[in-house]
């Protein structure tokens, strides 16, 4: 990986982060009007409004406010929540303890389902098994994750009483905390797994047609051995890319699913903040989520280039 290529990618990442923060600031702070009035309502007393405006620094030019906010984000200072009267960073840290494990569980489950299923379908191309797997994934892509979540609750929580229907007891509760995340993780993983299974299948089929696989077969390897030793690893490259691209859907999904299961994560924090008109929290958490999508896509780009040198020359 040439240093120039890496520098260009890092410059692109920094540009994307600055541009995204500018868009968030303009959409949430400048265009809607007076943020203090939005937060307190039109019936607020003028002195209360003036105090909030002063606290938020709204009397200063927009550019200075933006710079203050953006530099604050870099230092980990996300502002102060008006509803909770604590720094937003504290809230974010607390909520990440739920969102992050949930997202990780969903990704792990996605890979656990998609990789073997996709490989299995590819190894039995045009068989009944293959067609069934394709049909199931087609259905999986069409099911909204929050509806699937409701159906999981109906079956596993309401009818069979095997798992909790919502809420989170906290990590100190031990195994019940993990139990509380199982249904949300399954709901999040389903559409992702359906998409990745299809990608894995088609990627593996393409790789199996490559010359080096044919050579391996000619040297005496069975189809299964050639698949395991040569094709599988190379077929993972497109899977990795799609997984990275799917990250924005995973983030949006997490926000929705946390609300379905009343999990105290970042997604729920955003919606509680929206209802409480706490714009400081909404703005910072939205920015944090968008920044995480940009950074993950950057990492996927790097990983992709590490695996496939041809892509380093790509603009």
């Amino acid at each position: 990986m040439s240093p120039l290529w890496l520098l260009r990618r890092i410059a692109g990442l920094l540009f994307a982060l600055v541009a995204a923060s500018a868009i968030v600031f303009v959409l949430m702070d400048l265009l809607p009007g007076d943020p203090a009035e939005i937060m307190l309502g039109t019936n607020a007393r003028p002195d209360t409004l003036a105090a909030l405006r002063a606290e938020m620094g709204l009397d200063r030019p927009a550019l200075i406010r933006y710079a203050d906010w953006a530099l604050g984000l870099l230092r980990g200072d996300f502002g102060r929540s008006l509803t909770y009267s604590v720094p937003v960073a504290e809230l974010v840290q607390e909520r990440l303890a739920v969102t992050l494990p949930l997202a990780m569980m969903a990704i792990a489950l996605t890979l656990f389902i998609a990789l073997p299923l996709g490989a299995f379908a590819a190894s039995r191309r045009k068989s009944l098994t293959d067609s069934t797997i394709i049909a199931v994934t087609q259905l999986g892509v069409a099911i909204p994750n929050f509806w699937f979540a409701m159906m999981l609750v109906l079956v596993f929580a309401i009818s069979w009483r095997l798992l909790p229907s919502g809420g989170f007891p906290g990590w100190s509760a031990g195994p019940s905390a993990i139990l509380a995340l199982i249904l949300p993780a399954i709901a999040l993983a389903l559409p992702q797994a359906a998409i990745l299974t299809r990608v894995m299948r088609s990627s593996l089929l393409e790789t199996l047609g490559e010359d080096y696989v044919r050579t391996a077969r000619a040297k005496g390897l069975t189809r299964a051995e050639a698949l395991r030793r040569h094709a599988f690893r190379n077929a993972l490259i497109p899977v990795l890319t799609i997984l990275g691209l799917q990250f924005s859907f995973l983030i949006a999904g997490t926000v929705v699913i946390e609300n379905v299961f009343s999990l105290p994560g970042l997604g729920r924090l955003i919606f509680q903040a929206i209802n409480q008109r706490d714009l400081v929290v909404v703005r910072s958490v939205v920015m944090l989520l968008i920044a995480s999508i940009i950074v993950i896509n950057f990492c996927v780009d790097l990983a992709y280039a590490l695996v496939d040198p041809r892509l380093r020359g790509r603009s």
Partner: protein
Amino acid sequence: MSALTRPSSSAAHPSLWFGAAMTAIVVLIALVSLVWTPQDPTAMEMTQRLQGPSALHWLGTDRFGRDVLSMAMAGAAISLQVSFVAIAFGMALGVPLGLFAAMRGGVLDEAAMRMSDLIFAFPALLTAIMLRELFGPGALNAMIAIGIFNVPVFARVTYGAALSLRTRDFVTASRLAGKSETLIALDHILPNVLPLLIVQATIQLSLGILAEAALSYMGLGVQPPAPSWGRMLNDAQTLMAVAPRLALVPGLCIVFTVLGLNLLGDGLRDKLDPRLRRRQA
């Protein structure tokens, strides 16, 4: 015959016909709902609340006594309407952006495509949250939020196809004949990109249906009393133990619609995308 649109000689893909039939049913129901529904989908009748299926209410009633079938029919119209406008929005901005970037090349090309990459980082849900204070929660908010996410998708498809077309002989001939780049883009490139755009539009339409449902479910999309599938699911959530059918009906409507559109998209892609035809050959 255009360069990319030669129809496939192979027998039509079955998913195309399944998808087309399923989509046609949903569109027909949506159109019918504009002029007729069994009951007024917004009329509340508290004496009839949470009734099971009957001759009067085929799919029963919700907690306000509203007719579930009528709400599901009207929901189809709203869902398609939001998604169609979002597609139009995405195409209106994305296609010219992709064409412009491909035809101009250089720094402007790089800047335009980087900008479209950036928009990819804004899922419709987060955009809808940001636009909430600007437009207020409602169908318009959903249309714009989903539409913005569609812009880079259409820009990418147009850009990729236009780049490969601009070096083709018929484009070079037009350039030598003195045609301007704008005219070449409109007369030669755009008609050839159109099949790919139609396929992509079908796929984005299904994603739009899912996004609209999620936004309405979260209270960021269509607002009551207008019925929408996402809103119906939100209302049904607290009644899952007593009336699961309230969640089943709108959920199955979404699955049926999205499945139909995905099958249609797959079928159209098999038929129209030259790269796939070449691979199949």
